[in-house]
């Protein structure tokens, strides 16, 4: 189980987050929405353990994976090595994940030889190769054109449906949240607190239906 109980987070001179608390069980998909600059990414970095300078407590599982705003790949390693070296997955598993995200046969390519859309798919494949108990996604579809966003959404939906993983993803797009999440948390205010915490029809519910 994932348990977030932040009392406060401030940068020099300004409080960014007020009390923010929620619990999460796999295979829930929690979307964190809110206007840009509200502190969504800050919250995600705290949950990921990348930012330890806050008041409060976060309980997270051992195995994490994250999809960053930028693909954040190792440009000097091939697509397959980007998966294997980072997550410890074997080459067969890497290749099957590459195929799953539509990059079959591109394992030897360097990230610079891939388009931005393909780099994001690779970042997604890497995250799932880690077999995380908690998957974090920070605006994974930002700065893609609408057609590509649609494709990526569909792909992410498919990947999530096949795995019982708890997911927290940050987005400013209500559409993306409603499409993927089983629960939507909306941050508002300064410092930001949870304004809305609502169930949503997508995500784990669909997955449960798929399974039965």
């Amino acid at each position, binding site marked *: 189980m994932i348990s977030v109980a932040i009392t406060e987070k401030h940068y020099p001179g300004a409080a960014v987050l007020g009390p923010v608390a929620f619990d999460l069980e796999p295979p829930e998909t929690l979307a964190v929405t809110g206007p840009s600059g509200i502190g969504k990414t800050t919250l995600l*970095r705290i949950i*990921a*353990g*990348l930012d330890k300078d806050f008041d409060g407590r976060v309980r997270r599982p051992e*195995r*994490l*994976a*994250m999809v*960053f705003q*930028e693909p*954040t790949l*190792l*440009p*000097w*390693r091939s697509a397959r*090595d980007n998966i294997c*070296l*980072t*997550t410890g997955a074997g080459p067969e598993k890497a290749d099957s994940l590459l195929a799953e995200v539509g990059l079959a046969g591109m394992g030897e*390519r*360097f990230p*610079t*030889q891939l388009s931005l859309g393909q780099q994001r798919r690779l970042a997604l494949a*890497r995250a799932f190769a*880690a077999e995380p108990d908690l998957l*974090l996604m920070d605006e994974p579809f930002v700065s893609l054109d609408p057609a590509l966003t649609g494709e990526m959404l569909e792909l992410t939906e498919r990947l999530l449906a096949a795995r019982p993983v708890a997911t927290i993803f940050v987005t400013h797009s209500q559409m993306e949240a409603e499409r993927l999440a089983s629960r939507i948390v909306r941050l508002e205010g300064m410092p930001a607190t949870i304004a809305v915490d609502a169930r949503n029809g997508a995500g784990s519910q669909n997955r449960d239906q798929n399974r039965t």
Partner: protein
Amino acid sequence: MGSLSKPEADTRHPWVPLLSLAGLLAGWSLLALAGGDPALLPAPWQVAPLAVRELASGELLRHLGATLARVVLAFVVAMSIGSAIGMFMGRSRRADRWLDPWLIFFLNLPALVTIVLCYLWIGLNEAAAILAVALNKIPTVVVTIREGARAFDPALEDMARVFRMDRGARLRHVVVPQLAPFFASAGRSGISLIWKIVLVVEFLGRGNGVGFQIHLYFQLFDVGMILVYALSFIAVMLAIETFVLRPWEARAARWRRM
């Protein structure tokens, strides 16, 4: 990355460096002919037989080998210690503040002073010689690697942390590739500086090596032999540059060109 475009240019015009070197040889010949005194400046065709004789006797290779061994040893010592300090200073602002004055001190310490002091304090031995050379090179390695460590991509570091990459994997696949151009540049400038200082070290206090031979022939006023030793060692260093450093650099930068 200015240095990275160099090998590309070379493969496109491989004859340019050769032609340029031929021009240098021609200039030397002309000067020798105009001077007319082989004792002061012998012509290439007068130096060549000396080199062949020295090579046949085994002397040339023996001294080249001794110098090369010192160059390699001092290079390895300077690069490893310099890289470690450079990374430390690049990563920790506090370490940088405290160590920077030392760095400036050692950067401005004349090579001759380090060499003489090492010989006086440690003795006229191999350890003192290598240490003196390394001490001269370490500060410039530190400066270059520190620059590289400052330019680290924080996003990649976050990524490595979230995915729990272990220390070894982080070093090999995240840190070193980011530093590779800086290693290459430190290595390239390092090897040319080091062999020049090694010659001084040998000149002042060793019983073999190119520097020792140059000292010997300086006392005998034998310009021909001085040229033999100097030019053969330049040839060795050019060969290392062409067959070791450049190919390695090209390999490390493979991902950039695709």
